[in-house]
């Protein structure tokens, strides 16, 4: 818990940066757009339609879709930018809607009076319409502020740190006090901003100029803090540090920490962790040098990136071809294989296996129409699952996608009967599950491999050399034990990584 609390200033600041920047830009776009829609009425319908549609996109999807979009136009697609743009889009609807309804609600006699005393259209807007609509516009900003704080917790998977890091990594590593800490901190921040904006709204309504100025000064101070920390972060980014990536499950948190500690111990070069990335997000980030090194699995590249047939793929051949493919097509180096395999595997309760006499995937085919199968978010969309289904002719009663952290538990308590598990996961043992043998070799091999980006290869060969020392150092047994330390015993991934580095040196 103390280790988690130590991260709070970092995550809270990052969360505040995202929220405040998105709100500022959201207001700067939405208010003028709202004004325009009330001046030129034919803009109103399309503008509101776009804002409404944006709002109906699930928040996580809106953020996730920014990654390929930004990558396609050659911008930095991981980290602050995609989260920021997603949040700006999300903040727009309430501000836009309230700007339009605030301006529409004004008494005609006041608008006539404004013209009558000799105001131009611009003066009328600035001196009369906007000030009178301001309480309603600010109420829209308040709604947007609360939404944005909540949604910013979802920026973790696109590589922007936030209070969501507590929630995502806490869920994966079964550290529920971290999840709780993330939720409480996000709620507190939302309440704080809500309170500030509500006080501003009331001060404007009651025409207390000192109150308005006071709240605006508090916001100015928050923005100055945001600006300074952002500037400091960006200037630090240009200094010499290696960015290590991690996908969103326990093993990846541990391995990314191991890579970082190894680099620091051997070369003295500073590192930065970007955690909880989506699976293909991590690879795209490496390809575009936004992260510089992470651990991937050979079969994933083989099936998902190279789109090769997974049937009967032979372990050494897969490794060889993956290495030359990555090198030749995108300059990415396969630095080393760590020494263990973390394969996708079908698993079921030992008790059911005994009762039905199931050891191999072939054995489960006849029972499948009566069974429910669970998988993580990407499993049922992956080429490997397609192959398994085709090769064995599997047809389950239902397929249920769920969070990997909950999947093992679901199998353990009978919510689902078969799951798409990771073979190194400590929870297979913890929930008394058995891995079914892939007797017809539909699933490719999944050697854990360290991948390094093109830029890192040329700029820092000593880092590559340091990582190469990890080759063959982690056995499947060792990995399972480390996963279990985090998942079952509540250890911190970074502590487990330090212990490991201490042991091997």
């Amino acid at each position: 818990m103390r280790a988690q609390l130590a991260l709070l200033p970092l995550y809270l600041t990052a969360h505040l940066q995202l929220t405040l920047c998105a709100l500022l830009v959201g207001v700067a776009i939405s208010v003028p757009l709202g004004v325009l829609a009330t001046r030129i009425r034919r803009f109103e319908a399309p503008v509101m339609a776009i804002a409404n549609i944006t709002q109906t996109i699930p928040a996580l999807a809106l953020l996730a879709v920014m990654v390929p979009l930004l990558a396609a136009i050659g911008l930095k697609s991981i980290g602050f930018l995609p989260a920021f743009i997603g949040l700006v889009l999300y903040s727009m609807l309430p501000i836009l809607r309230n700007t339009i309804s605030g301006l529409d609600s004004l008494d005609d006699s006041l608008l006539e009076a404004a013209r009558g005393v000799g105001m131009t259209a611009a003066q009328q807007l600035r001196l009369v319409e906007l000030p009178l609509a301001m309480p309603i516009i600010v109420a829209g900003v308040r709604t947007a502020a609360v939404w944005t704080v909540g949604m910013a917790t979802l920026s973790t998977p696109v590589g922007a740190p936030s209070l969501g890091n507590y929630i995502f990594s806490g869920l994966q590593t079964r550290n529920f006090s971290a999840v709780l800490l993330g939720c409480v901190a996000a709620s507190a921040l939302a309440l704080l901003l809500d309170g500030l904006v509500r006080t501003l709204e009331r001060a404007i309504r009651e025409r207390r100029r000192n109150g308005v100025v006071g709240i605006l000064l508090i916001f100015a101070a928050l923005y100055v803090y945001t600006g300074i920390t952002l500037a400091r972060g960006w200037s630090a980014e240009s200094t010499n540090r290696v960015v290590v990536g991690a996908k969103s499950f326990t093993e990846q948190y541990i391995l990314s920490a191991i890579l970082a500690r190894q680099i620091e111990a051997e070369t003295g070069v500073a590192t930065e962790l970007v955690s909880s990335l989506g699976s293909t997000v991590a690879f795209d980030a490496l390809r575009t040098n936004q992260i510089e090194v992470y651990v991937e699995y050979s079969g994933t590249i083989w099936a998902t990136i190279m789109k090769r047939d997974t049937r009967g793929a032979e372990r050494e051949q897969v490794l060889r071809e993956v290495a030359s493919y990555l090198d030749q097509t995108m300059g990415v180096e396969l630095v080393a294989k760590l020494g263990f395999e973390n394969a996708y595997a079908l698993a079921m309760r030992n008790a059911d296996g005994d009762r039905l006499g199931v050891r191999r995937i072939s054995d489960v085919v006849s029972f499948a129409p009566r069974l429910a199968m669970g998988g993580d978010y990407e499993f049922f969309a992956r080429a490997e699952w397609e192959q398994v289904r085709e090769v064995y002719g599997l047809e389950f009663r239902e397929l249920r996608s769920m969070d990997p952290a909950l999947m093992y538990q679901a199998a353990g308590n009978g919510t689902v009967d078969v799951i798409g598990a990771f073979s190194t996961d400590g929870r297979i043992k913890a929930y008394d599950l058995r891995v079914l043998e892939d007797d017809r070799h539909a699933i490719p091999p999944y050697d854990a491999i360290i991948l390094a980006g093109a830029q890192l290869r040329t700029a820092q060969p000593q880092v590559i050399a340091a990582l190469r020392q990890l080759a063959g150092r982690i056995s499947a047994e060792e990995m399972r034990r480390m996963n279990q330390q985090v998942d079952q015993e509540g250890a911190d991934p970074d502590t487990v990584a330090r212990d490991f580095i201490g042991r091997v040196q």
Partner: protein
Amino acid sequence: MIELLHLTKSYGATVVVADVCLAVEAGELLVLLGESGSGKTTALKMINRLIEPTSGSVRLDGEDVRVIPAYQLRRRIGYVFQRIGLFPHMTVAENIAITPSLLGWDSQRTWTRVDELLATVELDASAVKDRFPSELSGGQQQRVGVARALAAEPQVLLLDEPFGALDPLTRDKLQQSVVRIRSAQRLTAIFVTHDMVEALMLADRIAVMRAGRLVQIGTPHELLTAPADDYVAQLMGTPRRQAEVVDRLLARDGA
């Protein structure tokens, strides 16, 4: 001098103001009299271009009002609104100072003028200056409305049923204020009302409108003694009938 030349306004097939011609001499107060829907307010609003005419024109001291931008025209013409129209987010002083500040007066001159005007409309400057309009009574609000219209020292003042919503005593006091102000400042003014008594009390001349047309224009005396038609005769008869009722009541009480 204000001239309305064949002024016409129609919305689709509905003609609201039909071919109105009249002239108001410098320093004169003309009352535009008519019932609601007679077109009197529309005619007034075409003078400072709050409404643009369908045809015909308005001349101010011989110059067509369309030659300068509407907002510049309006800064030269004081306007008192039927629904008062004070800006609720501005103090009394700020409301009065609007047109001068739009014209770029320096603040010294503006604030001196605000104090002067509050005295003119018989409000205690120190008591009301920094108040918001919602803190004033209806009568006080319209006094501020008159002050705002006079702020930029206009030669022309337009008043659109300014006292219609006020109680009789307040209305009476404000009418007396208007009489006093215009005799002191020699303003050319057009005053729209449907109230015969108000018209008779204030007007140099009265223009009677009905269904968009100008029925008769003349001094109160002319209208009383030589009404152009039955409608004007009837209209002029109302205050007399009311006065007779009051006289009878007085006589009976005295007996």
